[in-house]
């Protein structure tokens, strides 16, 4: 082993060890997400222009060396806006998943573990939420709370938890009957301990993988909500809004909508690959 590693350059050895046994899709997905994360964090350093600076003289400029992605109808640099948007959109993807994940996991665990009336109650609530079309319910909640990202997260939490609750509940129902759950019960462990230390860690794998692909849906949802003017407010750069704004000029300036649209596709692709690889690694199919 030492012979083989000695003549290898240091960075490769480090990378090789880090990525050993990691499925390829996960590597690529991880790399894509890392790039977006770097863009988001380093936006002030990387971005060539101020994302809201309007250069009226350079309105609707096609992609060129000065403006690699072109400019929009206000003369704002598309590349700068795409980079700055990564901050908002990554935040949407992460927070839009975390709230439903936590709420859904908790309710699903309790419903599945206790069963009976508790289960019936929780699952009827799930049915009620599912009875409404997803986007319509989201829009209704945001309309009540007022437009903005905070409302979007709250609406996401209120609507999105049902899928997690169902996933986790189904797993807990199976695990509850397992010998190790019986063993934990017969050893006199508390409900709390059995649920969250013994059952949940074994039930969560599937929903962790699902959360990755869910991030894609949330991202598209965020874009849709912003597109409808209920999410991120202008002039903040956000891919969904940029696509919406560019729509009017699609025949004369294709680049306004295309580049932010591509950014959404690539980030979504990254999440999908990560979900795929994670599923392979943890032994579940999303």
């Amino acid at each position, binding site marked *: 082993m030492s012979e083989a590693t000695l003549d290898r350059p240091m960075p490769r050895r480090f990378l090789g060890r880090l990525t050993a046994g990691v499925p390829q899709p996960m590597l690529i997905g991880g790399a894509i997400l890392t790039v977006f994360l770097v863009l988001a964090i380093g936006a002030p350093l990387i971005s060539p222009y101020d994302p809201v600076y309007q250069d009226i003289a350079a309105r609707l400029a096609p992609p060129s060396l000065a403006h690699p992605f072109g400019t929009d109808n206000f003369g704002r640099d598309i590349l700068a806006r795409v980079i700055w948007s990564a901050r908002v959109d990554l935040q949407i993807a992460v927070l839009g998943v975390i709230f439903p994940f936590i709420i859904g996991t908790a309710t699903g665990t309790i419903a599945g573990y206790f069963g009976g009336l508790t289960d019936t109650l929780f699952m009827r609530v799930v049915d009620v939420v599912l009875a409404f079309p997803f986007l319509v319910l989201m829009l209704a909640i945001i309309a009540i709370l007022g437009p903005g990202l905070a409302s979007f997260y709250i609406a996401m939490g209120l609507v999105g938890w049902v899928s997690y609750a169902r996933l986790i509940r189904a797993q807990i129902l199976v695990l509850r009957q*397992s*010998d190790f759950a019986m063993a934990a019960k017969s050893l006199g462990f508390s409900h709390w301990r059995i649920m969250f230390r013994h059952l949940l860690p074994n039930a969560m794998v599937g929903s962790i993988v699902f959360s990755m692909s869910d991030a894609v849906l949330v991202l598209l949802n965020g874009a849709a909500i912003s597109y409808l003017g209920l999410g991120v407010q202008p002039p903040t750069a956000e891919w969904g809004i940029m696509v919406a704004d560019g729509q009017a000029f699609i025949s004369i300036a294709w680049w306004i909508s295309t580049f932010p649209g591509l950014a959404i596709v690539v980030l979504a692709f990254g999440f999908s690959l990560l979900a795929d690889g994670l599923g392979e690694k943890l032994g579940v199919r999303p």
Partner: protein
Amino acid sequence: MTIDRTPLIEADDVVLHFPAPGGGPLGLTRRSVKALNGVSLSVKPGETIGLVGESGSGKSTLGRALLGLESVTSGHVAFDGVAVSAKNPRGLKTLRRETATVFQDPMNALNPRLTVGEAIAEVLRVHNKVPGPEVGKRVAELLSLVGLDPALAARRPKALSGGQCQRVGIARALAVEPKLIVADECVAALDVSIQGQIINLFLDLKERMNLTLIFIAHDLSIVRRLCDRVAVMYLGRIVEEGPTEQVFAAPRHPYTAALIQSIPEIDPDIVLPEAPMQGEPPSPLNLPSGCSFHPRCAFAKARCKADPAPTLRRRDGHGWACIFDPGQLPSPATATRLTTTGEHP
């Protein structure tokens, strides 16, 4: 022997019915699985009792009912003189603190996400068995007690063999310092060579720690080797119960006799009797009338079907639930030869 002391755990006319799945949209025609139909059993401290029977006979259910893992439909379970039921949390708590279970499938009985050491340490911490800093030491002690290298504490169940997992399961059970251990088919999933080791471990622990053991098994030779007393179950009833040697030498219930005759011998020259018992046990959803064994019994009379199921009769500490008196059944020839597993004291 500690035969005269009060029972450690006692079941009195325990009935346990599960609702069967299905039964129409509103569950109006729902039937129930009659898992236990009036079981009485008492186990004295220090005793090892074997529960045997075919699958579906209710032996595992009885084990779970005794440990309060299933709530009984009617009847009582008492541990150390205190009634155990969902309505009596204190009784249940005592029971949980002083009993432990060893399960059939050693791999599944351990949480796959915890290391062996964590799994055992958790029990010690929850029950405050040893002061915090000494947990690690006690874990090592328990592992060596069941014949495992304490270094295995850092492994997860996946990295252990079936036999090692079962030893860990036993170590975890012992961590409770239980008065009673229920071992539910705990060697059925293991290789024969490992089975012997685990049985010897049980014999050893039983002697050293004065454990009371309820040993659920379908392997009669193992029960014969390990148990002082044996209870034979059929369709949720105990049909025969008595000292192991007496039961094996002179079974009083035709079912027991047939079971003993069915044991395959290791000697290939011995011809097995041709099907001492026909078919499979009837469904516990739909019990036969009268004695539930009558459809398969070679000696069944008309009244076995018509009369209510015979109750357990007792003579010289050996009970049986059959209308025939001892000696009226032709004694199975194989019973006397059943010593291939070694001499029992």
